[in-house]
């Protein structure tokens, strides 16, 4: 916002002492009410107003406290923002950032915890990213703000507590780049958003059992970093995709399709997908606990894929 006066933030709770989970803290005092706009609970109109402001040369950042609320804004985001550049023959562009916060835990339930990256990735004209670490989150946010296209950023609420030393000065991270977290030779584990930390723990568990897992944070849901994915799976021969959204028509299905198309003869085992079950999110504590993929499951599935269910040594997870 300091770099470019055309950048402004719109959201619900910009004046609240929570400051949208701290993400807009201090902005009002610094940039004033014109650039830190409190929104009425009118997601579609506000999204459209952001589209119109973006067409005018402003760079709006729209924040919705729950990704689920974006369904109310889909007409503007999908029918308008994602298509204006195309349907007017490249004459207009919509430099709009939409930050969608994905809830998890404490009984967020069916309407406060949906991970919608797969759905948004379906539509040409949008960029869709889901960073899992502070360095990537900062770089992608800046890349998104100064892109001339609408960008959807899925922010996993459980990741807000992640601490990391990152550069203070501005930098960008391009779209379309997965983040290699650790190298391995037996299996590739691709994870998205708040299951990335689980995948890292699982890889530690596996290494204690003598198994070497390569862990990749997908980061960019549209476009996919196909090169990084294919190069890794070519090396390991196995792929486990772990996702916070449903497997059915989800990004894990797309990744699986791409890998099978490109590496059919080179796979040691079929691609597997560990995702949330195909139900809404349960609220009851015990059920919610079982709903999300854990490092224990990730390690188990990986071990089975590497060794075969029968042949597994006494596993790291037993």
């Amino acid at each position, binding site marked *: 916002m*300091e*770099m*470019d*006066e*055309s950048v*402004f933030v719109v959201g619900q709770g910009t004046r609240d002492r929570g400051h949208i989970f701290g993400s807009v803290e201090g902005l009002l005092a610094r940039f004033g009410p*014109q650039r830190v706009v409190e929104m*009425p609970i*009118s997601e*579609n*109109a*506000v*999204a*459209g*107003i*952001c*589209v*119109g*402001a*973006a*067409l*005018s*040369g*402003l760079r709006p950042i729209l924040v919705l406290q729950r990704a689920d609320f974006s369904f109310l804004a889909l*007409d*503007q985001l999908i*029918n*308008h923002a994602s298509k*204006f*550049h*195309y*349907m*007017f*023959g*490249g*004459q*207009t*562009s*919509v*430099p709009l950032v939409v930050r969608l916060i994905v809830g998890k835990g404490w009984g967020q339930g069916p309407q406060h915890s949906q991970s919608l990256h797969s759905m948004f990735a379906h539509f*040409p*004209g949008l*960029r869709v990213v889901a960073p899992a670490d502070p360095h990537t989150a900062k770089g992608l946010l*800046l*890349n*998104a703000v*100064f*892109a*001339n*296209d609408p960008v959807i950023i899925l922010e996993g609420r459980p990741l807000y507590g992640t601490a990391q030393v990152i550069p203070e000065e*501005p*930098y*960008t991270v*391009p*779209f*379309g*780049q997965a983040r290699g977290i650790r190298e391995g030779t037996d299996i590739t584990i691709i994870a998205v958003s708040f299951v990335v930390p689980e995948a890292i723990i699982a890889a530690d568990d596996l290494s204690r059992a003598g198994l070497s897992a390569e862990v990749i944070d997908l980061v960019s849901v549209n*476009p996919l970093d196909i090169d990084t994915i294919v190069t890794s799976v070519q090396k390991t021969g196995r792929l486990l995709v772990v996702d916070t959204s449903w497997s059915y028509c989800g990004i894990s299905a797309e990744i699986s399709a791409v890998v099978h198309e490109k590496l059919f003869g080179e796979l040691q085992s079929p691609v597997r997908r560990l995702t949330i079950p195909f139900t809404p999110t349960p609220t009851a504590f015990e059920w919610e606990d079982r709903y999300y993929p854990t490092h224990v499951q990730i390690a188990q599935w990986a071990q089975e894929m590497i060794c075969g269910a029968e042949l597994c040594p006494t596993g790291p997870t037993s």
Partner: protein
Amino acid sequence: MSVNKVEILKRMVRIRMVELYIARRYPEQKMRCPTHLCLGQEAAPAVCGYFAGGDDIFVGTCRSHGHYLAKGGNLTALFAELLGSGKGCSKGLGGSMHLIDLGVNFWGTSAIVGGGIPIAAGAAFRLRYENAPQIVVVFLGDAAVEEGVVYETVNFALLHKLPLVFVCENNALAITTPIELRQCSTILHDRFQTMGMNSFYVAENDISQLIEAIRVSYARARTGLGPTFIEYRVSRWCAHVGPAFEGPVDLWWQPPAASGGGHGCPICVLRDELIAGGAIRLEYIRSLRQQVQQEIEEAYRQAESTAGPIGQDPAAFVYASGLACELPSRGPVRGIEFRHAEASKLVNAF
């Protein structure tokens, strides 16, 4: 301020004739896109266009040939767009429902009922942000008032006192469904008054009242008094989509007796007023018709000569920028880049 009603009549005639021309050539199947004509609904675009400056912004609907032309949109580029030509106003990628001419600040149209309304408010938000003197005019039909986004946008526009004029052309039809089957009240504007909206109701073909409503609404928006909602009753003389039409569409240039006293034709109503007041004579109407017909035929010929889709793969238009974006260097910000000179030139071209 004196209003040049002859100029308004000319604009109405031009829109009528363009629409009739499209209707007649549409069956040749060279224009292959859903085409929503505005036959019978020429008055609001003409008056809105008359009072607008080149820097003011129009946002339209799927039925916006008239709005586009009224703002000064290029006629050849309109025809070319309908013909799917790469030289069309949207390079042939939008068609009749997605018209744009940024040179005259006609900012585009949406094929989603109500879709353009918050976008227009966003453009107005920018103007307010900059304390710019321009205004935004957004067109909508009666069916859009059934969409929640209208109420959401009205609320925002009032809250932020946006320089925005809602022009609702109420033809009482949603495709073919009459308004009585769709709305709790067939009068639309007054429901927004309870929200604090200044509003006007203009009866069908009351051109003088329409002129007054638009003049006042623009002035309010320009002086920081916020948005206005105008409801103007109209009759749509054509099918929802496609070239079929009925009614006294093409009698306006006949002597008043032959045109059956006008029978609800807005052009006839204004024509008769102007003839009665001595401002014009029937001969003027006829020479106007000839002149406009020539312009239309020439524009269509030109548009046809550019036929052929855009050569470039349209996939190039999905994204405006690449994967890696540059941070701006610290410094002054871009100002509003309206196309002042070009815009006024085109508006006055006719």
